[in-house]
């Protein structure tokens, strides 16, 4: 007696969101099956991998530094990042704008965005703000203006500033809006609802439901994503059918496991290898839980995750 396969198919499906223009554009979502379950039904748009660069220049991680060697500007880095093996899109983080950090003026950052846009052309771009709610009000409005016509994704609109960010990126300049909440299905849903009410097309919204490094409360990320995908597909909840993007690199490289020096922890071996491990395992776990796109920064992680996706989908 053969095994009775029972595919799990749903009538509902995840929205399809396109980032970038022309041949190089990428599409997120569109499937009616659980994450990576190609044995249940087709997944036309495989999950995508983004490469993060920042306005602060090249980071001091040997493999990252070596990759961007010779880049004289952030725009050069963006170009180089877009050519990385396995890369589908580039993520420009403007964290230098954080008032609690470098506090770079908005004009300087917008100038960088313009250069990056010029360097990338139609290639899909995601711009992350400074992370500071107040600053992003102004910064992301100007950034959206600078990105007009690129079909970029602007991250992120949060509960505190979704009106300005949603209105500028989504309404005024026709870009995609990232809706960022903090690892809670109800908060994610609420933000989608109010952003949509503002007039932003639901097919232009990508969720960032929040993340954690593996080992640091990651179980909340898993369960939040599991429940969102479940609500979207089995309950046909159209306020949770937006695809999910997950910034992995920020958390992965800021925990003890990837930061402690080899001098302090000789048995742990090189910090870089540990950071790559944190990034790869976080990204793989995110993808199987429901992310449609992950943001990484190390060339080794990008290549590995892209290869895994290729083998699975």
């Amino acid at each position, binding site marked *: *007696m*053969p*095994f*009775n*396969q*029972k595919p*799990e198919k749903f009538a509902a499906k995840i929205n399809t969101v396109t980032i970038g223009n022309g041949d190089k554009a990428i599409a997120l979502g569109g499937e009616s099956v659980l994450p*990576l*379950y*190609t*044995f249940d039904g087709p997944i036309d748009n495989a999950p995508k991998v983004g490469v993060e660069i920042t306005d602060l220049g090249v980071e001091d991680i040997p493999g990252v530094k070596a990759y961007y060697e010779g880049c004289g500007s952030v725009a050069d880095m963006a170009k180089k990042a877009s050519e990385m093996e396995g890369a589908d899109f580039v993520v420009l983080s403007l964290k230098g704008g954080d008032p*609690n950090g470098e506090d770079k003026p908005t004009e300087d950052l917008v100038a960088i965005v313009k250069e990056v846009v010029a360097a990338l052309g139609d290639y899909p771009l995601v711009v992350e703000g400074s992370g500071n709610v107040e600053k992003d009000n102004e910064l992301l409005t100007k950034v959206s203006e600078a990105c007009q016509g690129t079909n970029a994704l602007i991250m992120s609109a949060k509960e505190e500033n979704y009106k300005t960010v949603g209105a500028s990126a989504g309404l005024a300049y026709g870009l995609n809006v990232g809706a960022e909440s903090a690892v809670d299905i109800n908060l994610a849903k609420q933000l989608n609802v109010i952003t949509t009410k503002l007039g932003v097309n639901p097919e232009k919204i990508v969720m960032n439901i929040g993340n954690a*490094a*593996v*080992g*640091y*409360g*990651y*179980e909340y990320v*898993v*369960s939040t994503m*599991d*429940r969102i995908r*479940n609500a979207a597909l089995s309950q046909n909840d159209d306020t949770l059918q937006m695809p999910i993007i997950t910034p992995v690199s920020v958390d992965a490289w800021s*925990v*003890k*496991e990837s930061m402690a020096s080899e001098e302090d922890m000789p*048995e*742990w*071996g*090189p910090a870089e*290898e*540990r950071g*790559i*491990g*944190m990034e*790869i*395992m*976080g*990204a*793989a*776990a995110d*993808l*199987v*839980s429901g992310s449609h796109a992950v943001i990484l920064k190390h060339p*080794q*992680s990008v*290549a*590995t*995750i892209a*290869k*895994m996706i290729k*083998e*699975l989908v």
Partner: protein
Amino acid sequence: MALNGIQIFKMTPKTNCKECGSPTCMAFSMKVAQGAAEISACPHMSEEALATLAEATAPPMKTIKVGAGDKEYTLGGETVLYRHDKTFVSRTRYAISLCSCMDDADIDAKLEAMKKVDYERIGEQMYVEMVYVNYHEGDAQDKYLDIVKKAAATGRVLVLGCTDEAVAKAALDICKDGKPILNGANAANAEAMSKLATDAGVVLGVSGADLNELYDTVAKLEGLGNKNLVLDTTGADVKTTFANTVQVRRAAIKNEDRTFGYPSIVNLSKIAKDDKYMQEALVSLFTMKYGSIVVLDQMSYDVALPLYGLRQNVFTDPQKPMTVEPGIYPINGGDENSLCLTTVDFALTYFVVSGELERSGVPCNLLISDAAGMSVLTAWAAGKLSSGTIAKFVQENVEDKIKCRKLVIPGKVAVLKGDLEAKLPGWEIIVAPDEAVQLVKFMKEFK
């Protein structure tokens, strides 16, 4: 399939004798169906009816035990596909892979590297629980047996990857007391392998060319009376392996197909051989969905640190938050004269706060008291974190060990300051910022 009350009623004597404590057989049957009564409460059930009921009420996935003594591990026994539906019960176990095709130096190096990974993380000891010893068809039997001996000497649970009956028997003679897994049954040798495993009292691993063949082989083994199995769901490539592993688990839990109600083995040394980074990605994937044992080429700290952290998170019971032991945690070389800070024992809070304190570089002591594993505000609202609990902890556990009399409390419970000053005479109470990320600045500027 679970039975309903009517189906159970048909098996009762229908005499309404009340000996079970229920007024009628029907009422009793309804209680049994809901799990409110045990079928054994009825003294008049036939053997046959009891057997049918036992089968029907058995859990969807068997719990299989491997290893012996303090190295015994439980695999399977899961009842849900998603942790938020209840909880996962048996964490994924990891094995490193040895093979009769490797040379001695290679094998020794892998075993040495494996032994080095042994550390504690939030109350759990982290190490490689198993060693997979693969017999490469045609290699000398003696060489394989030497590796089995070496691997057994490490005290880890062995998984013998061997489809050759004679070799498997010889290997079991060496290591059967450690209750290894004999991963060697397939459609061709199921009967012989099953006898070997049963005679040795060990768990049998089953594989098949595809899910249909695996299904048939398991059914055959069950027919022979062997239900002490694990299923090797490794396929020809990554995609097939993922499909197999998910479908086996889903069939058991969601569709109650008990033939697939066994734990799984996923062998990454077969589908991502010598590709360390790919194995990192896949071991994460199969820890999430649904590998009971995952076999890797080798283990080192750069793999273990993220992996065991992930596993610890995923297998946490959603109803019981992860907590850290109450106590004094010195940070950045803090000593008895260093500033004291306090927060709750919720692991997430502890990690965030201790991480920020480490980043500040300032020596200090982090005092963790029992707050029932809740976050700061929740614990305060529930009365688990109060001036009373903090003062008691400080007086009983801190005052005789620490000379510094400055205590920093979380910004979110600034309201406790006055009370604490009254309850802890001689202490200066300082209020920290609201958010942990502001701690670095706070600590650097604190004098």
